[in-house]
């Protein structure tokens, strides 16, 4: 009984312990402010990596546009919070911001999924890349505001005229500012746990089996009666929705989103892909660990300045070897078996 719980929820417990450790250290004043400021981003990148792994590892479709879905979640969540800043209490507003951000990201995931999921392999990757860039570029150029006359939307600064009492939501390249800072490490960890819960349970259900069957062999899946389009759309939409949740955390952490191309360009999507590949394609927990380590590493090595990207590269190569090299995999397997026999023997003697 204890063993099955450990196997199933062990990783959740590790995350909770990590949260506890960081919170205690933080309260004791033992974390530098720089390190504390890295904790929230670490959670939303871990969440986004899980979202991407659902798409790449479980559904088997390579997407390089997931930063775009994060971007949509970030903007729609932030705009909702700005609009309801005066009306709703903080906690409820933040919760609803998640609902809005997730809903918008899911909607875009669904709409983009319709054309994109007809493509395969490289083509799909290229088109998702394009959609990610389009989303980012449009949001960087758009002006959006509300005043007594209604909603104003424009792509041109000169035609964007607001009443003095109006509320500007997106101000072109200056983006969204004044989003309340609701994100915290605790909220981030809760959303991460919920995400893991959702993805693990999805994988271990009839829908998850259907999705993975399509990944492994589309023709056989169809012949077995699986509605391929439906399950591809389901997985892609859920993946986009989770990325949207990560975006809501993002916008309510940075509060001012200017220069968003630094955060949501294709480099960001590729970085998420690096987390997924190094954590193990299809290995959800691995994505979380890889995202956390690889996000923290270059940040923590800022002191090393010139060498930090070199070290980062070496760590990438090492993680690649540990996860994917057949020789190392074999040794890991043997070590595991060896430890297992040792432990059971020790258990019997005790």
């Amino acid at each position, binding site marked *: 009984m204890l063993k099955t719980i450990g196997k199933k929820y062990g990783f959740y417990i590790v995350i909770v312990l990590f949260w506890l450790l960081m919170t205690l250290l933080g309260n004791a004043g033992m974390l530098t402010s720089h390190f504390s400021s890295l904790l929230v981003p670490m959670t939303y990148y871990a969440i986004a990596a899980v979202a991407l792994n659902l798409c790449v590892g479980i559904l088997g479709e390579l997407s390089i546009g997931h930063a775009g879905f994060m971007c949509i979640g970030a903007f729609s969540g932030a705009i909702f919070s700005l609009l309801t800043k005066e009306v709703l209490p903080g906690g409820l507003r933040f919760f609803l911001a998640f609902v809005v951000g997730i809903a918008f990201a899911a909607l875009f995931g669904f709409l983009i999924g319709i054309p994109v999921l007809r493509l395969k392999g490289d083509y799909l990757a290229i088109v998702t890349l394009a959609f990610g860039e389009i989303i980012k570029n449009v949001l960087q150029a758009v002006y959006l505001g509300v005043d007594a006359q209604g909603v104003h939307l424009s792509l041109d600064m000169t035609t964007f005229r607001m009443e003095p009492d109006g509320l500007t939501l997106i101000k072109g390249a200056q983006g969204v500012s004044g989003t309340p800072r609701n994100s915290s490490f605790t909220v981030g960890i809760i959303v991460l746990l919920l995400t893991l819960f*959702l993805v693990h349970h999805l994988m271990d*259900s*009839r829908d998850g*089996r259907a999705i*993975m069957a399509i990944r492994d062999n589309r*023709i056989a899946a169809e*012949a*077995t009666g*699986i509605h391929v389009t439906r399950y591809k759309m389901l997985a892609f939409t859920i993946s986009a929705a989770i990325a949207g949740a990560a975006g809501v955390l993002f916008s309510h952490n940075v509060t001012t989103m200017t220069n968003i191309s630094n955060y949501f360009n294709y480099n960001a999507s590729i970085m998420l892909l690096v987390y997924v590949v190094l954590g193990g394609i299809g290995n959800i927990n691995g994505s979380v660990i890889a995202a956390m380590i690889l996000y923290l590493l270059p940040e923590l090595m800022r002191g090393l300045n010139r060498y930090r990207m070199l070290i980062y590269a070496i760590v990438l190569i090492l993680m690649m070897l540990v996860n994917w090299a057949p020789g190392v995999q074999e040794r890991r397997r043997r070590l595991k078996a060896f430890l297992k026999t040792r432990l059971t023997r020790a258990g019997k003697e005790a």
Partner: protein
Amino acid sequence: MAMLSVDHLSISFGGLAAVYNFSMEIEKGALYGLIGPNGAGKTTVFNLLTGVYQPKEGIIRLDGQDITGLPPARISHAGIARTFQNIRLFQGLSVIDNVKVGLHESFPYGTLAGVLRLPSYRKQEKAIDDRATELLKIFDLDGQRDLLAANLPYGAQRKLEIARAIATKPKLLLLDEPAAGMNPGETTELMNTIRLIREEFDLTILLIEHDMQLVSGICEELTVLNFGRMLAQGRTKDVLKDPEVIRAYLGE
């Protein structure tokens, strides 16, 4: 009424008539063979029957229902299951999960029930697990239930494909060269399994095979294809004696 009735089926690829004017009737409960030299169009007939290809002409009826032109998933729901000449398992899934995918339509709890582990999930997953285990037992695969399908030996992979096909509760089972790559001992065992599942699951079976031991051993009726056209059709004994058939197989 016939379980499967195919009427003047034709398809061509770039001017080449891969299958031309193909007709056959398979009675309920029959064990029917489709044979012919390499490249005769046998697998193309399977692909037409299962909706992988759309026929240019002709009508396919399953148990009286017109299934011509339906997509593969719908044809599976209508009651045709198949195996593949080049094995197509879900390699990244465990042996039992491969069978569970086959049970997908029979236990249709919703996504939300699955994610939130509602009672309908628990109840139906239990039933799915029982049913899948039962099917694995019939094919003597229950010992390897948690193994990845990719790691099964070749013969076991062929059996798992049949188990997965049967899980979809088909009326008609199409087997594409089930004995390919098997030694005579394994072939005999396979013949027994095929007979057994026909009784057990009340199946009609259509199989493509090159192995004459298997064909003459279990098929009651045969259709012979050559260059996409029907060469002979009828009772196995008579067809195999047909000089045309012998010439197609052995040459002049």
